[in-house]
């Protein structure tokens, strides 16, 4: 039922993966259990460190917005994104235009 999937070049066995995952989880939990034993829940040790400043009550003030994620990637790829987003005008005739151009391109090359 679980079985092995052969790809022609390799294989995938979900049972083996689950067994491996269980062993790795057990090892991780064991390593975690070897940690410091002077940790006390509900004391100052639980406090968030906010560069020495008081932690704001509202999470909205300390969260990173999605628009800031991967800013380096976007900055590095700016010329690429300028072209790509430029294509996505959202104008109906442009959308139809891309369709007509693609069909015309295929029509020309299949007849050559």
């Amino acid at each position, binding site marked *: *039922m*679980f*079985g*092995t*999937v052969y*790809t*022609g*070049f*390799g294989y*995938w066995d*979900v049972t083996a*993966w*689950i067994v491996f*995952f269980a062993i790795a989880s057990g090892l991780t939990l064991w390593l975690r259990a070897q940690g410091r034993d002077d940790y006390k829940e509900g004391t100052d040790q639980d406090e968030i460190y906010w560069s020495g400043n008081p932690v704001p*009550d*509202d*999470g*909205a003030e*300390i*969260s*990173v*917005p*999605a*628009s800031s*994620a*991967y800013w380096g*990637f*976007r900055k590095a*790829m700016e010329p*690429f*994104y300028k072209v*790509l*987003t430029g*294509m*996505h005008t*959202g104008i*109906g005739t*442009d*959308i*139809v235009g*891309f*369709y*007509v151009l*693609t*069909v015309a391109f*295929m*029509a020309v*090359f*299949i*007849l050559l």
Partner: protein
Amino acid sequence: MNWNDHLPALLLAVPLFGAFMAPIVCLFGKTLRNVLLIGISFVTMLVALLLWRNVLVGGIAVYVMGGESFNLTLPSGMALPIRIIMEVDAFSAFMVVCGSIASFAGALFSTNYMEKFSGIGRFVSLYFLLTLGMLGMMITGDFFNFFIFIEIASIASFGLVAFWRDKPEAVEAGLKYALVSQVGSMIFLIAAGSLYGKYNALNMAAIGSMLQFGVMEKLALVFIVGTLAMKCGSFPMHMWLPDAYAEAPSGVSCLLVAVSQASLYGLMRVCFSLYGINLGGSFIPWMIISMGLASMFFGVTMAVVQHEIKRLIGYHSVSQVGYMLLGLGVGLLVLTDARGMAEYGFTAMKGGIFHIFNYTMYKGLLFLAAGAIYYATGKRDLNEMGGLARRMPFTTAMFVIAAAAISGLPPFNGFVSKLLIYESVFAVHPALTVVALLTSVLTLASFVKVFQTAFLGPEKSVFTGVREVPSGMLFGMGVLTLAVLGATLFPSWTLSNLVEPAAKALVDQAGYIGAVMGGGL
């Protein structure tokens, strides 16, 4: 009367009955309306599963509409079939199962999701018409009939995408979809008319048995491939898709995922079963592979920079369609090369077809999870979200499963289908695998962003009143989660019973033609 013989007709009759009953039943209150929505969707799914089982056991099911006998395709004295014929092989049956599960999940979800809105009678009618159009496209053996079902699905989609007509963005998205879809439909009709003009037949098997690859046939093929590639969201004709998916109610977005797969089905049916060995060279296979690669890469790069959750998932749809086009395109490339087909082509096709199932399930689930977030918070912008895992634990868990599956993380089903594609398309050219792997990495990056910004992080004060969504919505997501986990834990069973029979049926052009014409090629 044996009901099993009439399953192809029932598959269309049940949602059609639901569509016409909806305006009447909705007059009698919310409970009856929900019973109709869930009941009809469930019965449709049941019929689809029975049809799939019948096809696996008994081979291709052929059903003649309006003829003297439902299984007589060529009455005495006739050289060509003239009735509308439904032809269900294992590939059609596989598609029908995927589509009906998505329809059922979307219906379950919509019972609670749509209750805040008016005009639900119209919603239920359009929902069933969309289901009907989708299923019709998947089982018809008639070219003109395929066009009719495209139109039924399209018109229902326009209404459903623009269902929130007080939102200008929804109306705009519906209008754009209508514009490009209608231009595409007309081009498709020209192709169907041209083939009819030359071969005096509309039945796909009949045309396939006579087809000669001339100038008209080449142009008809290009018109069909272009139109159906556009309708399944292939680059660079995908631009209607993120708008339409983002603005439609989430239950509808889930169903639209399956509807786009019906167009992909049509594309593959025409390429494999109608043209097949007469495809004439490798231009069209390479065109499909190229569209697949471009869809994967450009779709995912656009998704990475989105911050509106449904638009982000919409761009991932473009990217995921690319995997299927790549896998099936490689299969088409080696259709007449027995060695290539045996060595890697068939594996690529299995990967592509398995990905259709996986994509329909996890992408539907992602849209439903995005809808659940919108229902609970009223927000779609990821910049305004955060810390929702504490308030919505079930939605979070199901979102994580879907996100891991689409990102191709082992052991999830998305990993298995992608693995089949990676390893087989490598044999054509390593660059194909490199693009597919890069796409998968960017998909993971994109969903890490969504998970981190929506569900993790400190709780925002505006969300202190947020609660988990009602049970109907959770059950809707639960159906798709079970499908994802089922395909994850039992990949061999899924491949042996769902995917391989579908792939074998798709490459068996003679079998498809022979079921209607008797003699085959």
